[in-house]
């Protein structure tokens, strides 16, 4: 599994996969809040008009209408942008979807800094943290288009609340069409012995580029994709770290409460090692192009390389 040049956004998988599922006879519906075109749930509505409900600009109602639809026996997906689809409706997700353990899949798009020019108000960087903290909620962060398709299918196959985080920007292809996502499994994309780079979402591609750059310097990095943020693939992550002895996490999300925090919690409890977290360092985003933003906020491949250098230096100092 290596990257090729075929770029596609994770959100592009959303509407398409819902149509496929409906074609297969799965009773899926989508509820969106005036962003059905952007999230691509509109594709489901085009194929099956009764299966898309657009509630207008009303995200709280969106979540609870989906809750009601799930109570009638349907598998209900919600849309909107991640910033509104989680933050604006957090109480609805908490007190209705999660507390009642309903078959509602919170699957907004446009998560993270990759929304780009829309700026800090729209760049949702705390959603993993919000969703991860909720009892009964499971969290998936797919890293490419095929992973997003697999994540949606895994969400459908799993009763109860699931959060699927998707983005607006095109990302390099990492997986083939036959990829199947599993709970609590990390995927070793590149084997190595010197450092573990655990990444999710668009940072998986950056991590692979960083590994190439590190190889040129003689550092053999292991890159693992961690789409299942909750439940976390503890065994897979610990197995990799036992081999490499140190870890760098990379995510397009705040270092507070996201993948980096989850791995830090895991290693602190089970296998204390040096760790560096690449992610948003407790700040809002800003307007800009994706490449500019990745560099500006130190989320690009060179930033991951620097983090690897730091973590290995700390390892060596203590040896």
């Amino acid at each position, binding site marked *: 599994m290596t990257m090729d040049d075929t770029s596609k956004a994770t959100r592009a998988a959303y509407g398409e996969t819902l149509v496929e599922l409906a074609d297969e006879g799965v009773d899926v519906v989508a509820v969106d809040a005036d962003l059905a075109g952007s999230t691509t749930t509109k594709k489901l509505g085009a194929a099956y008009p*009764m299966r898309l409900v657009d509630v207008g600009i009303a995200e709280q109602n969106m979540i609870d*209408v989906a809750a009601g*639809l799930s109570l009638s026996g349907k598998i209900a997906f919600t849309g909107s942008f991640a910033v509104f689809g989680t933050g604006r409706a957090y109480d*609805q997700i908490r*007190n209705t979807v999660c*507390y009642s*353990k*309903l078959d509602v899949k919170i699957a907004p798009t446009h998560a993270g800094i990759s929304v780009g020019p829309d700026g800090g108000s729209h760049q949702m960087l705390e959603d993993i943290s919000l969703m991860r903290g909720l009892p009964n909620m499971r969290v998936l962060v797919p890293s490419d288009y095929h992973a997003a398709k697999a994540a949606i299918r895994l969400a459908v196959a799993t009763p109860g609340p699931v959060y699927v985080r998707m983005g607006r920007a095109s990302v390099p292809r990492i997986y083939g069409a036959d990829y199947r996502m599993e709970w609590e499994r990390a995927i070793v994309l590149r084997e190595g012995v010197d450092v573990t780079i655990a990444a999710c979402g668009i940072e998986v591609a950056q991590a692979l580029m960083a590994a190439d750059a590190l190889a040129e310097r003689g550092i053999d990095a292991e890159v693992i994709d961690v789409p299942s943020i909750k439940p976390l693939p503890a065994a897979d992550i610990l197995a990799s770290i036992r081999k490499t002895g140190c870890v760098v996490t990379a995510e397009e999300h705040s270092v507070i409460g996201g993948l980096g925090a989850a791995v830090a919690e895991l290693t602190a409890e089970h296998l204390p090692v040096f760790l560096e977290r690449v992610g948003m360092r407790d700040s809002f985003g800003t307007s800009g192009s994706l490449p500019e933003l990745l560099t500006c906020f130190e989320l690009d491949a060179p930033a991951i390389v620097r983090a690897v250098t730091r973590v290995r230096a700390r390892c060596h100092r203590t040896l």
Partner: protein
Amino acid sequence: MQPYGSVEGARVEALAQMEVNVEKDVAEKVGTPEGTDGSERVAAIEMADAPLKAMSMRRDIIAMLALAGSGHPGGSLSATDIVAELYFGGILTHDHDRPTDPARDRFILSKGHAAPVLYAALAEDGYFPLSELSTLRKLHSRLQGHPDSKVLPGVEVSTGSLGQGLSIAAGLALGLMSSGGDREKGMVPTVFALLGDGEIEEGQVWEAVMFSAHQHLGNLVAIIDNNDLQIDGRCSELLGLTGIAERFRAFNWHVLEVDGHDSVALNGVLSQAKAYTKGPVAVIARTVKGKGVSFMEDQVEWHGKAPSADQAAVAFGELGGMPGWYSECIEGGRA
């Protein structure tokens, strides 16, 4: 010695008097048995069951709150006649032996803090034993402080965070309608949601109001328990919340107004609301917070305070006695 002997006597007397009144009501509404066909008579007697059940439910509510030591009597008592009419007046199609029957009508208590009124109705109906009411708000009880659908049969969805029930009800009504494939009444279950008047200050309620009218949800009924009191004062004074009927009409809802403590009127209006298929119906029920217990009526401080044992005894005196399960509980030393 029976500490509440005199109260028990009063209860029997009150019940006897109520039965006489009910018979009178039935006679007035549908004539004598000879003057009507059997079905009307049966329907009228079923309807007349609700006030008796409402009385029992009020006693249950006071008893369970006294045992719990916390909870919300005011809004439970204001909604008692409404909920009794839904469950015992022949409005809701439901069966306690089949709480997940797909064909059942749904009731969503959006004002989840009035959980005691829902628990009283479910227990009186037979969803679970009356004696379980003594576990309200206790560790490991199925009777959580606010309704938890994961643990208690008959609770459709967990509620407690205000403003969400109407959205849930709307989604459910839409789902049932599309699953049923037929908008004709009788084919699709009706979804009833009970909201507090203070609750409609939540903006989400109006998102749901717009949505439901736009979707022509003819199987959705919102009942507003309009007691004009919320924790911090009168709804009409705190946020100028008046003209609720006009507000719903302005959003293209069919609106019915009713005295929320008049069983016969309530039954008529709720039946009409269920039969109306063109769109969602709002039933604005004028109620008195704490209804049935003199010292609680229209008193804001009884929103979220449990009665002491002595206060409960006074309340039982006014409500025709204490529930049997409660006296057993007291005698068993579990109070």
